[in-house]
């Protein structure tokens, strides 16, 4: 694989993983925020507020977990190099 192709694949992977994260987030927040009574097609006010908070919180937590995973893998590597 030449470096240019590798870079293109890496960029595609980033887009794909961002889309995967987005899909998991909407699925998770849908369950937490949107009522399953379908007597009307409109979002209620409370549902809209819930979506906004849920997205913000999900992204915060995604970031925290990223840091945690990096931390944990560093501890593992230190333990192995001893």
């Amino acid at each position, binding site marked *: 694989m030449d470096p240019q192709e590798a870079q293109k694949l890496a960029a595609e992977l980033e887009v794909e993983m961002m889309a995967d994260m987005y899909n998991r987030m909407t699925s998770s927040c*849908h369950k937490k925020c949107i009522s399953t009574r*379908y007597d009307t097609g409109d979002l209620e006010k409370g549902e809209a507020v819930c979506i906004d908070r849920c997205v913000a919180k999900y992204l915060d937590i995604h970031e925290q977990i990223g840091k945690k995973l990096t931390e944990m893998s560093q501890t593992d590597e230190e333990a192995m190099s001893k």
Partner: protein
Amino acid sequence: MDESSQLRKIKDFLIIYNSLTERCFTRCVTNMNHRYPTKDETSCIHNCAERFQKGNQRFMKQFMKMTPEMVQRRNE
């Protein structure tokens, strides 16, 4: 828009379309006593699709608002 991002857009639409059918079918169709959707089922399906689509637009809007901050923090 070039052809590759147009395909991406079609794909994103089709994934939403497929998952919407799955979710609304699962929630609105509760028995198989009839071959054709009943009036109640049809009305439930329409409201469900509309709500999910409005929900999706709200998700996208909020996501677009939040990501610049997130990317900025990551690059600091």
